[in-house]
């Protein structure tokens, strides 16, 4: 009874926390192995992939440490011109450990961290009327931390976990210019908090002989920004004493809740086929632009309108993914020497027709991936393997015309290509 209460408490905790956080791994995959099969590995990832691919993989016995680096060059065009969306790069770290607690039961846990190169997180709110690739700007440049724990009983593994990341909040900035007995003084304060936000992760994996079936659920993530900036002026005989407060509220880089269902089939000769369907709940996405409010209370107080941005009305999407992996001479984790991989995914755009003031840019993305790995074997008692992957993403050309030529960017085209590369080194103690 006591253990049941503990499990219930764990799941209650991960359900109770609010959603937040998004990342590059959702687009490219975290680690070269996942990237090499275009993220079709819901049922076929490695144990170190557990936090990002399927949490149930964390129950694999052994200990694994993985470090990788990934770089993506984005060439996203608006009306034939590169919009200059920043390239994405960063370090991927993964740690997984699992052990057998009885003949049929194993448990494990895994942690994955993505550290973008230039920032902990890029928080970008651009004017809602400005053309922007809403899925490829701020969302791809943030630190992410994913933690999962899993248990496997015979062929069935089930798990739960959380994805964690930073938000931005706190009392914000305050500045006071006043006068007292000591004369004129200035007082300034800065209170910016970086609270963690959590999103739930769940996974299920069932091994059925040559086939493996799996499902994974990942909660929505984003960076929530809530900053207040206040200036107070209190000077003797000043007709404009008072306060000015600027409030900024927004949610940057939303990543939607995703539900993945996948399968892996070993067809023989070291060849495995992978397939997955991902359902992404973009319909709950908040506006990618921030609400801004300004309250001025001075001697003369201007009438200012707060700027509120409407929900973007994104569509939910269903993305099919397929992949293949050939490991020789044996597909077994301990006995393979080299591997080659390939994958393809079609990712529809959640962005609806742009009929008003916003010009959100995106289009159906075709993703082709190739990869490979080399198993170095045991070196100083550690099992080492290196993996590489390359991806080409093509955003199909999308042309739109708004109903009125008096709307911003009333006629536009968008398209683009993304080239992504990743390399990882994994050390395992089995």
């Amino acid at each position, binding site marked *: 009874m006591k253990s049941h209460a503990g499990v219930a408490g764990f799941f209650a905790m991960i359900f109770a926390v609010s959603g937040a956080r998004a990342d590059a791994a959702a687009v490219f995959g975290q680690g070269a192995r996942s990237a090499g099969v275009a993220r079709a590995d819901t049922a076929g990832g490695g144990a170190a992939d557990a936090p990002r691919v399927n949490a149930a993989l964390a129950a694999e016995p052994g200990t694994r440490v993985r470090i990788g*680096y990934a*770089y993506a060059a984005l060439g996203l065009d*608006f*009306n*034939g*011109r590169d*919009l*200059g*969306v*920043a*390239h*994405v*790069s*960063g*370090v991927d770290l993964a740690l997984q450990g699992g052990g057998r607690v009885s003949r049929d039961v194993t448990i494990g846990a895994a942690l994955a961290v993505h*550290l*973008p*190169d*230039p*920032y*902990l997180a890029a928080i*970008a709110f651009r*004017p809602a*009327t*400005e*053309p*922007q690739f809403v899925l490829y*700007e701020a969302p791809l440049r943030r*630190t992410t931390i994913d933690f999962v724990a899993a248990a496997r009983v015979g062929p069935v593994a089930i798990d739960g976990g959380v994805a964690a990341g*930073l938000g931005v909040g706190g009392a914000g900035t305050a500045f006071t210019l006043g006068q007292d007995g000591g004369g004129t003084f200035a007082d300034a304060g800065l209170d910016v908090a*970086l609270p*963690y936000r959590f999103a739930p992760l769940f996974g299920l994996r069932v091994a059925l002989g040559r086939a493996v079936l799996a499902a994974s659920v990942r909660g929505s993530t984003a960076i929530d920004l809530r900053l207040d900036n206040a200036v107070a002026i209190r000077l003797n005989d000043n007709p404009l004493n008072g306060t000015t407060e600027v409030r900024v509220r927004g949610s940057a880089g939303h990543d939607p809740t995703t539900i993945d269902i996948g399968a892996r089939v070993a067809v023989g000769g070291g060849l495995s086929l992978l397939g997955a369907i991902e359902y992404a709940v973009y319909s709950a996405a908040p506006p990618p632009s921030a609400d801004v409010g300004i309250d*001025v209370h001075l*001697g*003369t*107080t*201007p*009438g*200012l*309108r707060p700027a509120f941005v409407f929900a973007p009305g994104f569509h939910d999407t269903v993305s099919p993914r397929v992949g293949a992996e050939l490991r020789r001479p044996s597909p077994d984790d301990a006995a393979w020497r080299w591997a080659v991989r390939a994958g393809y995914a079609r990712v529809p755009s959640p962005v609806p027709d742009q009929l008003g*003031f916003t010009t959100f840019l995106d289009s159906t993305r075709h993703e082709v991936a190739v990869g490979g790995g080399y198993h170095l074997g045991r070196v100083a008692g550690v099992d080492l393997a290196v993996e590489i992957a390359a991806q080409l993403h093509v955003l199909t050309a999308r042309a739109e015309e708004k109903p*009125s*030529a*008096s*709307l*911003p*960017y*009333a*006629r536009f085209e968008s398209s683009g290509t993304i080239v992504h590369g990743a390399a990882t080194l994994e050390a395992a103690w089995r």
Partner: protein
Amino acid sequence: MALTGRERLARAAPMIAVAVAACGLGGPGGEQRAVPSDGVGNFGSSAPIELCLGSARVVSPSASTGAGAVCVGHDAIARACVGDAGCAGIERCVCGRCIVEACAGGTACGEGRVCRDKRCTTICAADADCAAGERCASGGCARACTSDAACHFGERCDDLDGTCVTQICGEQIHCSSNDSCEAEQVLGELHEPEVATIDAASVAFVEIRSGGASPTSAVYRARVEGRRWTADPPTPVLGSGSGESLGAPSAVVRAGRVELYFATGGAAIARAVSTDGGRTFARDAAPALTALPGWEKGVIGSPAAVIDRDGATLLFYEGGPRAGVGLARVDASGHAVRAFDHPVISAADVEDPRFWRGITEVGAPYAVVADDAVRVYFTARGIEGLDATAGDASLPAEANDSIGLVSTRDLVHFDAHLGGPVLARVANLRAYLGEREAAVRVPAGGQVEIVFVASDASGASVSGLAAAP
């Protein structure tokens, strides 16, 4: 102070990132480029345009310092400049050279400056308020000198008290035989700017209204060099010597010809054609369009000609005055035929209870073809702001001129911009300014530029031309 585990991690994370970057894995961190405005709002901040007639800047009477020329020694050489930052001391960059600003007293020199000894200089109370080598004389800084060489361009050394002073000159006041009279200001109000591309160069046409007992207006052509326009030729290309007030130029360029449509005193719109890049024009014998009663009330002006997608010339014009914008089609002979017997833009079309209310005047159209549609920018007078408060009292927002936009893809249905004006400036959060008579250039894929006449909210005080961004 003890840290929680979460706080420790938050503090450690930047160090981890720094350590990783230090290992040579740091990648790009550049910020994204801004998207050029497409001309539907978001023009950016504006700056004044300087129009030069020879060495003199055309200055609106409301912005004049009261003096237009200074005596300059024959051997004095001015420093060339692009902006005020390239000049020394109290000199200002006027039409490409550094010179002191002549003045005739009053407060025309602007904030922080004062008119002393016939030129604008730094205000002071003691020598310590002035730059090195200067002294405070009668509340204004002046350079100490023993010869003219120590003075700014436009000053002479006063041998009696050893400071630099300025002598203004003009038709009634002459310089000594050792000096020449250097013009730096010409009074005139700039209106209805037009910017066209002629022979791959940017060329402007603008109306200059001169004041006095019998105000007249004429059309000038100018080379566009950034924010400086230089009249070329320095005399009017239309309206000179005839005694007739001509203005509101609008140009279309076709097959090496410049067709200039212009207003002729209120009753008609005429056309003139140039085959030498707009330096000289031959005026058509008959007007292109003559005012009618009805909504035009016998007054038309502010033509805005544009070549549409089919190669036809469309002519938008103001009727009323400022009662609305009409549309006519121009045939090959230059004769215009009205498309409708009503305005295609009226106050009722623009009125928006939330973003632009109380519209009383609509006019001064400017038409461009962009994105396969015809855009018509116009000037309307109305209120775009909310009321302010002072204590318990309400301060109603001021009506002012602002730039609006309507577009059409079929020349039948005209859609107004839904968010109120596309250009409306505000100073100090609630001081509304006036913008009118816009000209807009929409380069393919590039930054849209708008040029307009800047004024105060009342529209009575015109400060000159401005451009954004």
